[in-house]
């Protein structure tokens, strides 16, 4: 892969995933009383206002390929990030060192950086104490998962692949994290979360299949079932045929839908619309997508992960972004809300930054059709498991390009009739969301190009596959 798409987007996603914690196993770092550490940082600061975020994390990942484990890694990390406000200016400094000298240095560095810049007329005072809705996203079982537990699950999957004369590659990861945020005006918030992830690619000589799941609860992940699904896709797409490029009815499984629609996330930022960088510039309140398209940002949805406060400490709100095809609302940080005469929605990014805000807990409205029903209703079309290397070609008309990957099938007369060589697509997402004929139930899903979201499978007419590759 490369270069990583929209680095800032990746940062947001990683941050959302990293906000988590520990229980069920020994504390990550027994030296640390995080609240006392935050208090110490604030005490050391001579800035007008001081904000501190502390994250600790323990993450491990077992990676396999060619039916064997080839990487097996673990990390313990700590991060202390200090934001200082001096004379209406703000800046941030970070460290992973906890001794007093390092804490003094990071506090002084934030204040010095802040001091050495022009005054920021948009800077608002830090928040005082806030009230948050609690979210429970921590699993003792996930936190306690050991290398041996992951290795045993991987070994079973590799043995399954060997039995079917296939080759397995993938990862099994687990981790926990804990974070707190506090400031000199009495604001304090904390969050803990675990995360487990299993993904698998099953390969044959000229075909492949893929499956992936994530959850805060490792017991909800079934590696063998995921491997069986990937195995069936690899077997079902053997000896792929080459089809002419063109416009086809596309049946997109949830991971494929997710990786496409993830490209819309920053378009819903108030700052993006104000800067005329959003595809919704001049289009808010107008019918843009089909009647069957509705979207929320909702961190409280039971299938979502993430903390209930944003990078400024504002409580996150559930926001209706698209209502039956009409882009209805945007999300706002405190500063962009003030500029745009709106209310902050709890989607601000940590300050200072030039991006403002972004929704990262997308929940799409679903339907009641299964992928099987979509296939059965299709005379000729393409069934897509997963997409790859998606990039934006035209930001206002939202044309995206990318490739199909790991399980692309021809559908004829209501049946999957075999595998086909992978296509390149060049498709406007706006047009795609106007051409959705069927929706599956919205489920938590995971791809590789966007952050996890709650999203349905979609049957889309007139999807533009522009070229074909050699496998």
């Amino acid at each position, binding site marked *: 892969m490369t270069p990583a798409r929209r680095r800032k987007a990746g940062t947001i996603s990683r941050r959302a995933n990293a906000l988590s914690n520990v229980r069920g196993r020994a504390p990550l770092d027994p030296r640390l009383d995080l609240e006392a550490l935050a208090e110490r940082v604030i005490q050391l600061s001579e800035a007008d206002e001081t904000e501190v975020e502390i994250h600790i994390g323990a993450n491990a990942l077992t990676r396999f390929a*060619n039916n064997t484990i080839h990487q097996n890694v*673990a990390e313990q990390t700590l*991060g202390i990030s200090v934001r200082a406000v001096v004379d209406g200016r703000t800046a941030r400094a970070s460290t992973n060192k906890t001794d007093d000298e390092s804490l003094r240095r990071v506090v002084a560095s934030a204040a010095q*950086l802040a001091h050495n810049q022009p005054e920021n007329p*948009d800077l608002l005072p830090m928040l005082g104490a806030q009230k948050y809705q609690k979210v429970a996203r921590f699993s003792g079982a996930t936190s306690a998962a050991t290398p041996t537990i992951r290795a045993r699950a991987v070994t079973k999957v590799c043995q399954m692949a060997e039995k079917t004369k296939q080759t397995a590659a993938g990862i099994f990861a687990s981790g926990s994290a804990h974070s707190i945020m506090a400031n000199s005006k009495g604001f304090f918030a904390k969050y803990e979360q675990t995360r487990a992830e299993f993904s698998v690619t099953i390969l044959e000589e000229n075909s492949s299949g893929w499956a992936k799941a994530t959850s805060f609860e490792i017991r909800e992940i079934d590696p063998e079932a995921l491997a069986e699904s990937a195995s069936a896709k690899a077997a079902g797409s053997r000896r792929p045929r080459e089809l002419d490029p063109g416009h086809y009815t596309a049946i997109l499984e949830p991971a494929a839908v997710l990786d496409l629609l993830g490209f819309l996330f920053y378009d819903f930022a108030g700052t993006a619309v104000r*800067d005329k960088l959003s595809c919704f510039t001049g289009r808010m309140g107008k019918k843009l997508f089909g009647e069957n398209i509705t979207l929320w940002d909702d961190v409280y949805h039971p299938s979502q992960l993430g903390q209930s406060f944003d990078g400024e400490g504002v409580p996150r709100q559930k926001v209706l972004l698209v209502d039956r095809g009409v882009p209805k609302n945007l999300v706002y940080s405190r500063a962009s809300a003030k500029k745009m005469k709106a209310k902050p929605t709890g989607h601000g990014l940590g300050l200072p930054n030039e991006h403002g805000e972004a929704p990262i807990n997308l929940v799409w409205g679903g339907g009641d059709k299964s992928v099987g029903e979509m296939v059965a209703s299709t005379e000729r079309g393409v069934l897509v498991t997963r997409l790859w290397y998606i990039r934006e070609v035209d930001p206002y008309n939202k044309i995206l390009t990318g490739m199909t990957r790991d399980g692309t099938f021809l559908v004829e007369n209501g049946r999957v009739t075999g595998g086909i060589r992978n296509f*390149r697509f060049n498709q406007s997402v706006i047009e795609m969301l106007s051409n959705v004929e069927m929706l599956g139930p919205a489920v938590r899903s995971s791809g590789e190009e966007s952050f996890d979201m709650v999203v349905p499978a979609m049957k889309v007419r007139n999807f533009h596959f522009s070229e074909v590759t050699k496998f």
Partner: protein
Amino acid sequence: MIDWANWAIETAKRRGATYADVRVMDIRHRDISTKNGEVGTLSESESLGIGIRVIAAGAWGFSSTDRLTREGVQTCAAEAVAIAQASALAKHEDVALAPEASYVDTWQNPFLKDPFRIPVERQIDLLLSADKEMRRVKGVTVAESSMSFCRIEQLFASSAGSAIHQIKMQSGAGIVATAFSGNEIQKRSYPNSFGGQHVLAGYELVESLDLVSHAQRVAEEAVALHSAAQCPEGQRTIILDGSQLGLQIHESIGHPIELDRVLGMEANFAGMSFLTTEKLRKLKYGSDIVNVVADARLEHGSGLGTFAYDDEGVPAQCTPIITNGLFTGYLSSRETASAIGEKRSNGTMRCESWNRLPMIRMTNISINPGTWKYDDLIADTDDAILMETNRSWSIDDRRYHFQFSTEIGWEIKGGKKGRMLKNPSYSGITTEFWNSCDAICSRDHWTLWGTPNCGKGQPQQTMGTGHGASPARFRNVKLGAAFAK
């Protein structure tokens, strides 16, 4: 640093490791950006920790920590060994490494001005000046500028006796003007997209770029693109500027030659490669004038892929990748070199930080300069599209089929550069494309470009890579698929 390394290696050996290596890394960043006359990002960060990689029971284990007490380091080393023992549950055979000598050495890339000693207010002033110049141009809706600096001090030590201390200073800067009008967003960047140019150097890089004097042109071109003609579709001759050719090399040569990818180790995420091992020294990758090297040595240039030793202690080397059009080399590690029967790794194992495992990464993957002067190349071209500065990029997971678009295009007619074209894009199959190359500009036009944001691996790591390139011409290339209806 050496005490921490020794504690780790001693503990790993005591716990049963047959090999151990460690990377202690102290990483410092400064990032500054502006948007429309205001400071956006303004931050500094530091991170210090240790990553411990071991072979025990014939399998790999890795653990990392920032708890740099004796107890913290020893616990981490013990965990690395325990992880290796768990890995052995699914092993087919013991890990084998190509032989490598041990080294005790110190190295630092040359630079003139430490960017962390340049006052922040001076750096902000420069960015705001460029920002202001861009916003003077009517029609510009967003003006952005940025600088980023990184200093990495690292110690590599191994149970074989290596102790290698290296310091790398990296700098980068660039500007972008965006113009929204009607139903289009157009933009221009200088000196490149992805935050501009990035190399191993000090603040002298930023001064050499002279961002302010380029700001007006960049802004005017962003606005002018709205009234430019659409780039045509069809099979045409194209000339790529050096920065776009650098990314073309990155995607369609740099990634497919990664031997871990070829051997299936990246199959679940980054993908595999069409360059299967039977193609080595047999495949006609490009035309006879195409010569590509992987060169991490300082004499190649001070790029993002330059170092003295890689992150498993192998000295920097120059490997011929394509020689007179023939595919001649992969990027390898000690493990993958051994797997295909090579005598030695060519030194491309790199990690993003102390908490990440080294993996095969591009160093400086560069095309050797040709013989053409740029003006002569244009004069020699009857009908073509000149494309400059990458805008979007995509390639399949075996690196066959690619599609790129650039920010701006120019019509070449009768040997002269003509009107501006908007939305240029081209696509093709890797080997067909490189075999269609019939002219490469000379050393005078060659730049070692930096790509700072290469993503690979699980957990994903972002790495900087270097790509030396000069403008080059390609025949019979498909244009316009990105915008075709």
